[in-house]
Every structure is written in structure tokens, then in C-alpha cells.
């Protein structure tokens, strides 16, 4: 099972995880390991205060790219259910940007799956961030290596 979605409103990552595992129901007992990553909007970047973040995306291609990444990594690592939620639109500091969750029988696939999905999402999924700082607006030029 797999659930990928874009949200234009703030979301509670812990409530989403709780709802997702409720959906898995007794199937969850097959998965002894579960790994998550949450990326949250910070109130600073490259030394400047950031008050608002605007997340632009490519409707259609973005969802398709995330689904492709998850499906390729699942084939490689052999994990079970996966969840990816990503914000779009206008964000305030402290709001979650992305939530990734991967379930598997043993820990290696869940941990590696989460790590590889966030890494590939950051370099392959068509999202673009624009920051509002005291000096005005600016597009984020590129993602860090880690």
C-alpha cells in the first residue's frame, strides 16, 4: 500500500501517521520496523530570518515523480507500505513541509527507504521554494547535500 499526496493546508504529521497505521490495521503486524522523516520550515536559512515560504510545484508531474521514486525504491529495497505527504503553497515557520514513512519487516529496508526517498525527492521532484526575508523575496537556489 502506498499513499502520496500534496496538501495546500498545514497538516499534523503525527495525526497523519496515526491515521495511516490505522488504515494498515492488522497488516501492520507484518512490519516490525517503521521509519519516518519530517522536514519542517525553519525560521532561518543561510543566515537570514525567513518569515514565509512559498512552495511552487508542477501539478501532475510532481505526484508522478514521487510515485516513481517510491516504486523504484520499493523494488530495490523490498519494503512494504509507504506514505509521502508534501506541502504546497504558503507556509509559516514551524509548519511541516514533508512527511515520509516507510514500513518493513526488518529495520534496514525501512531506514534506507526513508533516507533514499527524501534524498531523491529533494533532487528529482519538481518543487521550488521562494523565501520571504527582511531583504525581500528570493528563490532558493538549490538543495543542500544533506
Amino acid at each position, binding site marked *: 500500500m502506498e499513499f502520496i499526496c500534496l496538501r495546500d493546508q498545514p497538516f499534523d504529521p503525527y495525526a497523519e501517521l496515526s491515521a495511516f497505521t490505522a488504515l494498515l490495521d492488522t497488516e501492520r503486524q507484518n512490519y516490525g520496523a517503521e521509519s519516518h522523516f519530517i522536514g519542517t520550515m525553519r525560521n532561518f536559512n543561510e543566515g537570514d530570518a525567513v518569515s514565509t515560504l512559498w512552495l511552487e510545484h*508542477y501539478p501532475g508531474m510532481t505526484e508522478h515523480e514521487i510515485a516513481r521514486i517510491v516504486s523504484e525504491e520499493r523494488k530495490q529495497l523490498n519494503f512494504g507500505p509507504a506514505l509521502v505527504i508534501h506541502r504546497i503553497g504558503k507556509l509559516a515557520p514551524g509548519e511541516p513541509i514533508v512527511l515520509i514513512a516507510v514500513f518493513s519487516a526488518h529495520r534496514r529496508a525501512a531506514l534506507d527507504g526513508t533516507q533514499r526517498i527524501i534524498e531523491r*525527492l529533494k533532487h528529482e521532484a519538481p518543487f521550488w521554494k521562494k523565501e520571504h526575508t527582511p531583504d525581500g523575496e528570493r528563490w532558493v537556489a538549490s538543495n543542500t547535500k544533506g
Partner: protein
Amino acid sequence: MAIRIRYFASLRETMGRTAEDINPEGIATVADLWKVLDEGRPLPDRVLCAVNQEHATPSTEVHDGDEVAFFPPVTGG
């Protein structure tokens, strides 16, 4: 042929438009197409592209009815 062009993020602002429909003649690849759009200038390294919503390269072929998008490096996550 008929091509749908889309621009995103900083490139959308630089180009001053979100999308356009054009009917270029004598072009084979994404690189050819960009020259038509940008007054003959070559596609810059820092501009990425997608054809029909899949990542592409400057040498990817374009065909009648394709959607071709241009954008800067992605910064999600």
C-alpha cells in the same frame, strides 16, 4: 507541429510567462525548441526540462502534441 510550453519558478519570472502554445517548424529536440523560445540563444546548463511531465535532457526529441516544461533546479523536501 503544436507544442505546449510551461515555465516554473524563477524561470517563469524571467521569461515573464507561465505557459505558451507554439507551432515551431524544423525542430527535433528540446535544445532546438529552446532556441526558438529564447531568440536563438542556447539552453543554459542551469535550466532543466521535462517532456510530457517526465525529466528530459536537451537531446530528448519533441513531437507534435508534446508538453515541454523548463525550470530551475528543484528545491523541495
